[in-house]
């Protein structure tokens, strides 16, 4: 639907987008995941033809839209809509603001009224037409912000951190609206977020952007379990990353010899997700087993405990379901055996 080819963008001397190649497919939800300042907003503006690029190509629905004049840009821009992170409204009522996109498209008054009403219902703000936008709460404002894009029925919806200032309840409402828009209208959606949980919850594919570069693009399972770079691995919660020396399918680390599925030789980083580490019952044997001391046990979600443990001076995080802590009688100071399954270990050459 939108394809970016070798896109580069500078603000003055600052290289903000670096050789971006990205193909947003029709009807998908793509999460653009990156830290603050990574270039998410800029990338969305580029897709929306709101910012010019310095080199590269933008293809929209098969048509090269890189170097259009302002009038032609409007034509393509009207097939998409960008919802900005901070809701900014025109002076006036909720109705005026939601009607804006339809008015500039010269939609008839009657139809505008119907569609605004419908859009408000979709975002759960039925009857808010006459409210002054200045009186809206942050959650309501973000929903009106979204309604004003949905009412246009764009083919592509570009969302810039639509929930970054909202509480969990409002976040869930917004996420549901987004998912419904895709399911019912087949809208193609690109959502910028710095929240990996959100990216996983609502997207089909995730594109990780770091300092203006796309680190990895792929289906979320792929990104999660086969991170290609250290950055992606860390960003998506691979909390255990160690430095070691690899040789002939083994990694030497502390005084251990860890078997891995790789033939890389030399200094490497290797990592394992905390939830992939298994606690081994006393007396049993498992691959890559080591004995660690529990330093801290912390409930980090309704169902998961995070165990902070040490092997010599190396800190290792382990995530276990809640009941495991009781069943295995885990407590601070206890020594346990853990297994680093070789299928779960990822290796990143230095």
């Amino acid at each position, binding site marked *: 639907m939108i394809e970016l080819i070798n896109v580069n963008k500078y603000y003055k001397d600052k290289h903000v987008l670096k050789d971006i190649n990205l193909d947003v497919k029709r009807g998908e939800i793509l999460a653009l995941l990156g830290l603050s300042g990574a270039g998410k907003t800029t990338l969305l*503006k580029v897709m*929306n033809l*709101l910012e010019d690029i310095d080199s590269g190509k933008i293809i929209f629905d098969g048509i090269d839209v890189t170097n259009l004049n*302002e*009038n032609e840009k*409007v034509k393509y*821009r*009207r097939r*998409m*809509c*960008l919802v*900005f992170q*901070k809701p*900014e409204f*025109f*002076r006036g009522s909720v109705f005026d603001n939601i009607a*804006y*996109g339809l008015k*500039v*498209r010269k939609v008839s008054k009657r139809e505008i009224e119907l569609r605004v009403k419908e859009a408000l219902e979709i975002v759960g703000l039925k009857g808010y037409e006459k409210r002054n936008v200045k009186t809206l709460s942050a959650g309501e404002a973000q929903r009106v912000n979204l309604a*004003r*894009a949905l009412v*246009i029925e764009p083919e592509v919806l570009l969302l810039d951190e639509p929930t970054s200032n909202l509480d969990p309840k409002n976040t869930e409402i917004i996420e549901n609206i987004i998912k419904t828009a895709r399911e019912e209208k087949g809208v193609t959606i690109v959502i910028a977020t710095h929240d990996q949980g959100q990216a996983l919850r609502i997207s089909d594919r995730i594109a990780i952007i770091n300092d203006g570069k796309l680190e990895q693009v792929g289906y979320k399972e792929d990104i999660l379990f086969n991170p290609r770079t250290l950055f992606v691995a860390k960003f998506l919660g691979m909390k255990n990353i160690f430095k070691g020396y690899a040789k002939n399918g083994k990694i030497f680390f502390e005084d251990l010899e860890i078997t891995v599925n790789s033939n890389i030789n030399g200094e490497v980083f290797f990592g394992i997700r905390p939830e992939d580490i298994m606690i081994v019952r006393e007396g049993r044997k498992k691959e890559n087993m080591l004995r660690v001391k529990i330093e801290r046990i912390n409930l980090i979600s309704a169902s998961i405990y995070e165990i902070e443990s040490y092997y010599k001076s190396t800190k290792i995080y382990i995530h276990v379901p809640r009941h495991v802590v009781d069943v295995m009688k885990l407590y601070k100071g206890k020594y346990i055996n853990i297994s680093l399954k070789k299928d779960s270990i990822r290796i990143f050459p230095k």
Partner: protein
Amino acid sequence: MNNIEIFLDSIRRAIELILSGDPYVLSVTIVQLKVNLTAVMISILLAIPLSIILSFKEFKGKRLVLSILSTLMSLPPVVVGLIVFLILSKSGPLGFLNLLFTPEAMIIAQTILATPIITSMSVASIKSVSDSLKYVALTLGANKYQMILSILNEAKYGILVAILAGYGRVAAEVGAILIVGGNIVTYEGISYTRTLTTAITVEASMGRLDAAIAFGLILMLISFIINLTLFILQRRSV
């Protein structure tokens, strides 16, 4: 009569003068309003497009234009009057138009006084509309023209304030119109280029306190109306 009594008597007679519809007072007021209003109208026609260009177009020399405007804004009216005088005088570049000492000359001078202030205040108020609202308009499908209209609509109170400030500047101004208008009254005692402000200087210097006060009162009324409108606008704009 002591001084205070003389003063109070002048005020009483001034009010009588106004209420009686004295032709001289009336004509001075009309010239004042005509010159001020026409100058501000022309200024609006120049300043609004200019401020749109300055706000929405990037071009070389934009900074220069803006700094010229702010210089013109702080120029004393007498100096502007002198410049217009030199240009319109017999030997000046536009001398052939024979405009010196006419209401038109006054309008020209006041247009030069009002345009910079209306322009730069309008630019400031357009600038105060959040930049991201431009992007909002565009992404919602506005073309450039629609986007500019929307932003102007956001800035409209600020622009109205700018216009009133321009009006305030020319309404209170004496120096420029005195030089280029000549403060002329016809033999029948009807104003040709005499305004409330220039009239006050003449009447006061000739000791005709009642007339001077009458003109002062009318001028105060005008500026009161401007300020009241400004006050209402500023309350509406927040």
